[in-house]
């Protein structure tokens, strides 16, 4: 049995392979946690799940060896008043590895834009070291903070410790996020807080949706999950168009703002013709060595020129967002990109219009949707025509089906 820092770790020859290489390794992190846990216990610290990280290493090693999982998924949501945010998980090796027999996950509602103070992070870590395995996952694919592994009887105390952290520890309180057939925790890019391209206040929108729809977030009653993601510009840093049922993607209506002096400055270090003009997918840009011209009617908001020349080019002044409906990212079929449902909503009307639409969509989907049918699938079944009646929109040529349907694949021409 290998001994590290005076702590015995289980033999894990298969997992050890995943530690090799210069990149970060989850195996390294679990081993570090196992060592820290044992040291803390030796120092007299009370740990609710002693040996959890060691147990997890053993289960993982066995899963690789047996070529099957040893987890049983699903279970009770034992936090009073909540129907989501806890995912039950049991290990089928309770006799061999009792340390991780119960290994439930708790999802925590992250702040909009994923901004934390060190104090807030310390609160989460302290609570989780006390009531759980000490292992976390920052962040899950919906965006929540994932706390990995605790027992049923610790779910309520852990939720209380987080909810009342300010009163109990002088910490920063956190609420549980969404799971199951409910509104999943809304997420947003960092938006205007850190990014000059943001065409609307993503953080405000995310906060408003989270606060307004607490019932939908915590009390699952729908046919299946529903995700809202807010991206400030068409760069779509939170992958809203591919990963959310309701994607709000910032855009502009007028012309890209150009600072010609700044373009000329860039021209001293960047080949504008090669790296900007020729890369424009609609050939909307021209450059004569002195002046950059953009035919805005041809612009498809790919953001390439703005990304390459951020000091010289900016989104237009008439800002707002495009709404896409029905995106999702299932494992088997791959990403399904949302369908443009509303081409443009001005920034000052955005949140209220979105709320009106969301409530109408939920009402329709809840009534018509089949078990485990996402809203996008319901639109395929019933037709976009019916959906547009629900959201009170007229068909429009700009309602593009699955725009940019391969945004995450970078390929080279075969002859390159």
């Amino acid at each position, binding site marked *: 049995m290998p001994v590290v820092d005076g702590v015995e770790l289980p033999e894990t020859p298969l997992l050890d392979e995943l530690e090799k290489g210069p990149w970060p390794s989850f195996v390294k992190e679990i081993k570090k946690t196992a060592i820290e846990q044992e040291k803390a216990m030796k120092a007299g610290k009370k740990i609710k799940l002693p040996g959890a990280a060691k147990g997890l290493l053993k289960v993982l090693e066995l899963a690789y060896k047996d070529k099957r999982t040893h987890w*049983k*998924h*699903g*279970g*009770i*949501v034992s936090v009073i008043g*909540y*129907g*989501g945010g*806890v*995912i*039950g998980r*049991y290990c*089928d090796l*309770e006799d061999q590895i009792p340390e991780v*027999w*119960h290994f439930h*996950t708790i999802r925590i509602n992250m702040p909009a834009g994923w901004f934390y103070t060190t104090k807030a992070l310390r609160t989460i870590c302290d609570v989780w070291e006390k009531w759980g395995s000490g292992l976390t996952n920052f962040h899950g694919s919906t965006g929540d903070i994932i706390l990995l592994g605790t027992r*049923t009887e610790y779910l309520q105390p852990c939720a209380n410790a987080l909810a009342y952290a300010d009163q109990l520890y002088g910490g920063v309180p956190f609420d549980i996020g969404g*799971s*199951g*057939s*409910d509104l999943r925790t809304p997420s947003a890019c960092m938006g205007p807080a850190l990014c000059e391209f943001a065409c609307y206040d993503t953080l405000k929108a995310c906060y408003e949706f989270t606060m307004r729809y607490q019932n939908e977030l915590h*009390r*699952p*009653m729908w*046919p*299946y*999950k529903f995700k809202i993601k807010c991206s400030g510009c068409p760069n779509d840093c939170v992958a809203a168009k591919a990963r959310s049922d309701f994607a709000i993607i910032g855009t502009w209506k007028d012309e890209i703002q150009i600072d010609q002096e700044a373009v000329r400055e860039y021209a001293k270090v960047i080949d504008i013709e090669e790296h900007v003009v020729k890369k424009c997918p609609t050939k909307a840009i021209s450059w004569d060595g002195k002046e950059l011209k953009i035919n805005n009617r041809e612009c498809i908001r790919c953001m390439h020129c703005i990304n390459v020349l951020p000091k010289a080019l900016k989104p237009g002044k008439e800002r707002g967002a495009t709404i896409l409906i029905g995106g999702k990212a299932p494992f088997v079929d791959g990403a399904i990109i949302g369908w443009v449902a509303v081409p443009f909503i001005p920034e000052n009307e955005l949140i209220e219009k979105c709320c009106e639409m969301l409530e109408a969509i939920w009402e329709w989907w*809840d*009534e018509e949707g089949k*078990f*485990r049918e996402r809203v996008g699938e319901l639109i395929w079944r019933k037709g976009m025509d019916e959906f547009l009646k629900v959201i009170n929109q007229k068909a429009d040529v700009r309602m593009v089906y699955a725009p940019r349907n391969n945004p995450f694949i970078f390929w080279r021409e075969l002859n390159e």
Partner: protein
Amino acid sequence: MTEEINKEELKQKILEHLAKKPWQVRDLAKVLRVKKKELDKIVQELIAEGKAAYWSSGSTTYVTTKEKLEEMEKKRSGT
């Protein structure tokens, strides 16, 4: 008064169904021929009263009685 009695009867019927297996509210609404929205409210009341509870697979959520849930959890955890 009559409405209250009917609601209590309905609650009882719901609990009888929930005691047999976990249900998706929409399916139970069809079986009981009740509007889903109405059933949503009653199920919430039953949960608040501690008579019903959620069971979640992580991706989808069901409702059942507290007793049935405990029985399922015992089975699931292998005790």
